[in-house]
């Protein structure tokens, strides 16, 4: 084949570019018909101003909890939370799901616990849950932004986005997260479940969300409602808030402060008020138990 024949039979550079341009134009024209129609509804734009900057937290009066029945009383608080949020009840400790559970002083405060701690402190049951940290490690490691910090301080989960990688579970120093190893629905107790609250699905991590849905409706978390004043909820950045008043009047500790995550669940030791409770004087919590929790979800 001579050079002349070659140039006659094959595509010249000029023709190749031209053909490419025509092909692209045709492709674009065809794609035009496939363009996804965007929703053009002005209604999707909301007037909502956004969540205010805050740092919500809890103050748990462990002396008072003890005076009201200790572990037995805390179990009713746990049941209220778990029933409200349809948390599955799985007996196998390796797969069990917990939003709140109890630990001993030694387990909960392993950094400061000692053999010679006084008997009372050691005997208390400590309800533990997500600490809604100021600098949450779970949020730092989450690759899909499933878990994130809301402006009001709640460490939230968007279960729709969770891919089940469990980085957050390894990152959380408090073990506050549980993984759904199996479909949780068969393990949700149908007698006590809340039909107004979703369950989770297999392969998703879950944890305490500080009842963000109740807070958004102007209410307080379920555990606070069920604790008859033993747990105080409020904005820690507001010096006039109830939780700051409570914290300013009694000795309190937090879990694993040295890790720098800034936990926002405080454990209060307040023998004085507790003894009043123990003597049968019901002071009435700031937040009484607000009726049937199942109806409160509407």
């Amino acid at each position, binding site marked *: 084949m001579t050079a002349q024949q070659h140039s006659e039979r094959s595509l010249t550079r000029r023709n190749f570019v031209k053909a490419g341009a025509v092909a692209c134009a045709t492709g674009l024209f065809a794609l035009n018909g496939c363009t996804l129609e965007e929703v053009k509804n002005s209604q999707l734009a909301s007037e909502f101003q956004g969540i205010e900057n805050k740092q919500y937290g809890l103050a748990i009066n462990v002396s008072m909890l003890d005076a009201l029945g200790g572990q037995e009383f805390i179990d009713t608080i746990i049941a209220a939370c778990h029933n409200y949020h349809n948390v599955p009840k799985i007996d196998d400790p390796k797969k069990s799901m917990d939003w709140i559970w109890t630990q001993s002083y030694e387990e909960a405060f392993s950094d400061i616990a000692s053999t010679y701690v006084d008997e009372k402190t050691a005997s208390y049951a400590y309800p533990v849950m997500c600490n809604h940290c100021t600098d949450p490690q779970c949020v730092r490691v989450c690759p899909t932004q499933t878990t994130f910090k809301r402006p009001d301080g709640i460490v939230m989960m968007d279960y*729709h986005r969770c891919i089940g990688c469990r980085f957050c579970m390894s990152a959380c120093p408090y073990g506050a997260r549980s993984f759904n190893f199996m479909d949780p629905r068969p393990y949700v107790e149908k007698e006590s479940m809340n039909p107004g609250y979703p369950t989770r699905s297999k392969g998703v991590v879950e944890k305490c969300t500080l009842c963000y849905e109740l807070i958004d409706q102007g209410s307080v978390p379920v555990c606070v409602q069920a604790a008859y004043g033993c747990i105080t909820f409020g904005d820690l950045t507001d010096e006039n808030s109830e939780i700051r008043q409570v914290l300013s009047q009694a000795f309190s500790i937090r879990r694993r402060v040295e890790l720098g995550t800034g936990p926002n669940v405080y454990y209060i030791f307040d023998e004085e008020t507790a003894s009043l409770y123990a003597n049968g004087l019901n002071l009435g919590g700031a937040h009484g138990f607000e009726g049937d929790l199942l109806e409160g979800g509407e």
Partner: protein
Amino acid sequence: MKKTGIIAFVVIFCALALLPFAANAISPKAPLELDYNTPAIKSLEEHKCIESTEFMRSSHMQLLDSWRNDVVRNGDIVYTATDGTKYEKSLDDSCLTCHSNPEEFCDKCHSYEGVNPYCWDCHDSFGLWRQNESNEALYQDFLASVEGGQE
């Protein structure tokens, strides 16, 4: 010979590729009848969803998607409809209170259209609640009371 071979191939290929479209054009799928007869919808004065039927049909998925982000990520729970009525942005507490028959309403159309959303993996706990015998009885009582009120 070579040319006719190519042309024959193109014709056969096009015929095969267009066969599904042709089949649909000749005998289209039977139009879908959805069941709107739930107690809550029956008790409505005007049979109307939160927005126009056309908008709900074409864009309910985008609406739900934006609701999800608003509620979960931004704490924005109130939806103001075009007519000014306010609704809670909630699949369980808003949509499913009227459309309490998701298997006859949502699922039927989704399977007709060949889409497979996984809402019920988590949502519609009400259906799960009804699986309890005593709750099913409660629900039937409720239905009976609504039906009775209509007559």
